[in-house]
């Protein structure tokens, strides 16, 4: 393509140079395309669990029992009442941030740290907690419980 200039070094040396250029150039292109290709492939966890999260099997959550699951960076508690309803709340106690649990004997949500208690609507009914627990929406698809934040 270029006019051949006699001052250029011998064709052999020029093609070595071009070959090297192609080699390193290909390497640079690879160093760009490899991250792009990896980026395009969907990651193992397809989306951030911010708005909703799966909370396990619905069948295995028997009446009058509860289960604590992670929801984003904080824990959530899903409860099946004695009557069979599913309820879900934030599991972070509003007193000093301990993780609450379900007490089947009290049929209440209980915090072990300072004996705080919440009823099954999340309202703080006994002990130090100053505020109710945040409630989440519960849905069941194919035996999978899904919790989602209320907007």
């Amino acid at each position, binding site marked *: 393509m270029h006019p051949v200039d006699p001052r250029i070094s011998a064709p052999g040396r020029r093609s070595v140079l071009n070959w090297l250029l192609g080699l390193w150039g290909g390497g*640079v292109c690879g160093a*760009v395309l490899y991250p792009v290709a990896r980026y395009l492939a969907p990651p193992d966890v397809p989306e*951030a669990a911010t708005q909703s999260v799966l909370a396990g099997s619905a069948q295995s959550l028997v009446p009058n029992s509860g289960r604590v699951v992670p929801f984003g960076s904080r824990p959530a508690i899903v409860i099946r009442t004695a009557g069979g309803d599913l309820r879900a709340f934030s599991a972070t106690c509003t007193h000093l941030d301990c993780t609450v649990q379900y007490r089947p004997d009290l049929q209440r949500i209980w915090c072990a740290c300072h004996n705080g208690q919440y009823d099954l609507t999340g309202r703080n009914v006994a002990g130090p907690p100053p505020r109710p627990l945040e409630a989440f929406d519960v849905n069941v698809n194919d035996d999978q419980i899904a919790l989602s934040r209320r907007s």
Partner: protein
Amino acid sequence: MRSGRIRGWLDERLPIGDVIETLRHKTVPHHRYSLWYYFGGMTLFLFGIQVGTGALLLLYYRPSAAEAYESVQFIVTRVPFGWLVRSIHAWSANLMVASAVAHLFSVLFLHAYRRPRELTWLSGVLLLLLTLAFGFTGYLLPWNEVSFFATRVGTDIAAAVPLIGRGIVRFMRGGDDVTGATLTRLFGFHVAVLPAVATGLVALHLLLVQRHGMSVPPSVERRAAGDPAAVRAMPFIPHFLLRDLFAWTLVLAVLAALSTFYPWELGTKADPFAPAPAGIRPEWYFLWAFETLKHVPPAVAGINGELVAVAVMAAGALVALLLPFLAGHTPRTRRVVVWAGGAALVFMAIMTGLALSAVAP
């Protein structure tokens, strides 16, 4: 040869042969100032990086107040090389603004705006304003504390404009205050409206550059009259192109290093009800305006000080836009342009320096 047949097939249908033929004969003036010619292409290269990394980010980003921050966190922690794509996008934005400003001032000082390149200059200044708009709209998208308050402060400045000020603010914010509606709106500007306008302007700008070729500064022209060796013709292919490629690859390495050693931070999620933290400021390229507004007295000759400052800046932008039509052709007027441009540059540098030193702990 197979490649020859393919080339023939394509040549019959597409004007590739014509384009390559034109480029083979294209030359670029080579003189003591021709280093500055590379800044235009550099800005274009960085714009291409922005489009590429931006498209990649779009695959995972969610433009709503409830999910934006978490989606960026997801990109940076869970998506393979997501940290790299995001940091390159953020760093490249800053480098692009710097490159565009360098390009504008080099064109100014080398008087490349003069006839017949007035429209090139016009489209160029508009492209610079567009670049700043890209920066402003993109800054909010991670929805973190710093960007939320910077957007609120930045859009507040528009309220100083009389009559239409409130309207401008409502237009920019999608409401009276910075909310999720602002995020969605600025996102729409950032990924659709601004790129569409920018594509048109870039196409026009490149077409005009191709039409008129590179401008030779008046001083070099004068010297060339006496000494022909002052200006030589550098073939575009391969001399200029390979040097361009060199600069672009170097900048690519710089971007990769910046992203690895100084990754862009996530910040804390924006909370509209929290009080503004101390030291809120916009990105560095807006700092000079921010600092100027801080030093303006509350009232100048009875008029609101902020309004006066905004008006002066707007007037400055207008002068910059219409420069080719305002500046004359004599050496004296060109000297005025150089001094005015130099003064503006020094002023902006000093204001930026003041703003940065004020925040340093």
